[in-house]
């Protein structure tokens, strides 16, 4: 088969698939897009101004906040069968390996003892683009071998790590991490309602 024939066959196939979606429409109105962009612009402006004005103060505060939390943490080596493990490292980081998201309370306790504030939601999906992005920006977590390595001092003050399940089409397909504000309500869904999670008609979860 030459390139032209392949091109033609693929084009036909894709066009057919696209045509079968003719009844599908975006649910997000233009006004919501514009409002979202406006909020983002304001947020960026405020962030830039705040960053310039308080850079020095932020460094001092970060140091002041990091020292007490580091002193409260202690070396932890907890291995819960083949479910999960939490290990403190000599450089102050904590290695977490999670194979199943069970025994949530014990996991939260082990993490707290290791200096990692965390909230674990074993039965619900509470992850969102916002809280996953917040974790990515904080650089508090990186991949390390079979698990992840968390730097407790990089977790912003007033926030917690979020461990949550991931659903797709009513089934649990895995779990992931995010960063949420301490005390802020989580916006979670259970497996049977996961289609509502990203729906534009429902409120988006906030970090």
């Amino acid at each position: 088969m030459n390139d032209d024939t392949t091109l033609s066959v693929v084009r036909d196939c894709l066009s057919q698939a696209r045509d079968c979606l003719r009844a599908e429409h975006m649910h997000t109105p233009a006004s919501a897009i514009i409002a979202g962009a406006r909020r983002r612009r304001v947020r960026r402006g405020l962030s830039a101004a705040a960053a310039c004005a308080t850079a020095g103060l932020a460094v001092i505060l970060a140091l002041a906040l990091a020292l007490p939390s580091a002193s409260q943490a202690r070396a932890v080596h907890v291995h819960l069968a083949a479910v999960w493990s939490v290990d403190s490292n000599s450089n102050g980081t904590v290695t977490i390996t999670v194979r199943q998201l069970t025994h949530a309370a014990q996991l939260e306790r082990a993490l707290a003892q290791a200096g990692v504030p965390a909230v674990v939601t074993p039965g619900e999906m509470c992850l969102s683009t916002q809280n996953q992005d917040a974790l990515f920006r904080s650089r508090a977590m990186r991949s390390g071998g079979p698990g992840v390595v968390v730097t407790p001092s990089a977790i912003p003050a007033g926030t917690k790590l979020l461990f949550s399940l991931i659903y797709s089409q009513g089934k649990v397909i895995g779990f992931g991490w995010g960063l949420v504000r301490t005390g802020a309500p989580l916006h979670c869904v259970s497996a049977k309602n996961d289609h509502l999670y990203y729906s534009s008609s429902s409120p988006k979860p906030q970090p």
Partner: protein
Amino acid sequence: VRVAKVKQDQREFTEFYEAACDECLRIVWLSCGSRQLAEDLVAEAFTRAWLCWPKVRGLDQPRAWVVRVALNTHVSWWRRRRREVALDGHDTAATTSPYPALDTAVLAALRRLPPRQREVITLRLLLDLDTAATARILGLPAATVASHLRRGLAVLRREIPSFDDQELTR
């Protein structure tokens, strides 16, 4: 004067959004395989379009710009979330799609292509752009676009043996 200009920009953007959003949604859906994800990606792409509307408005193919941004955002999100851990065997769970035409081997193979090849095939075949327009949107030489297209089609041809049967019946 400035308020009037902003209102006019909003009107133009709204017209563009209402005319283009559904097509962009369908194209991104085909490429990423999930309706919810496609809706989020397209909304994000249109948000960025509004943030730099004076630039996007002046493009030859603003829809192609939106689709390209949505596909790039998909790659970025995937990179950020790749530490997520998949449970064993979740692929075996049978999920019934309301659109069987979306479960074809061609689309599955398309979604496995490297991002650049997928972008080129999406813009060339789903948005019906020619090589020159695709090259402008992607900021690549036309020869590079042709090369990505050739490689992408070669992969699709290799992975979908039924193509040979289809050729015989054409």
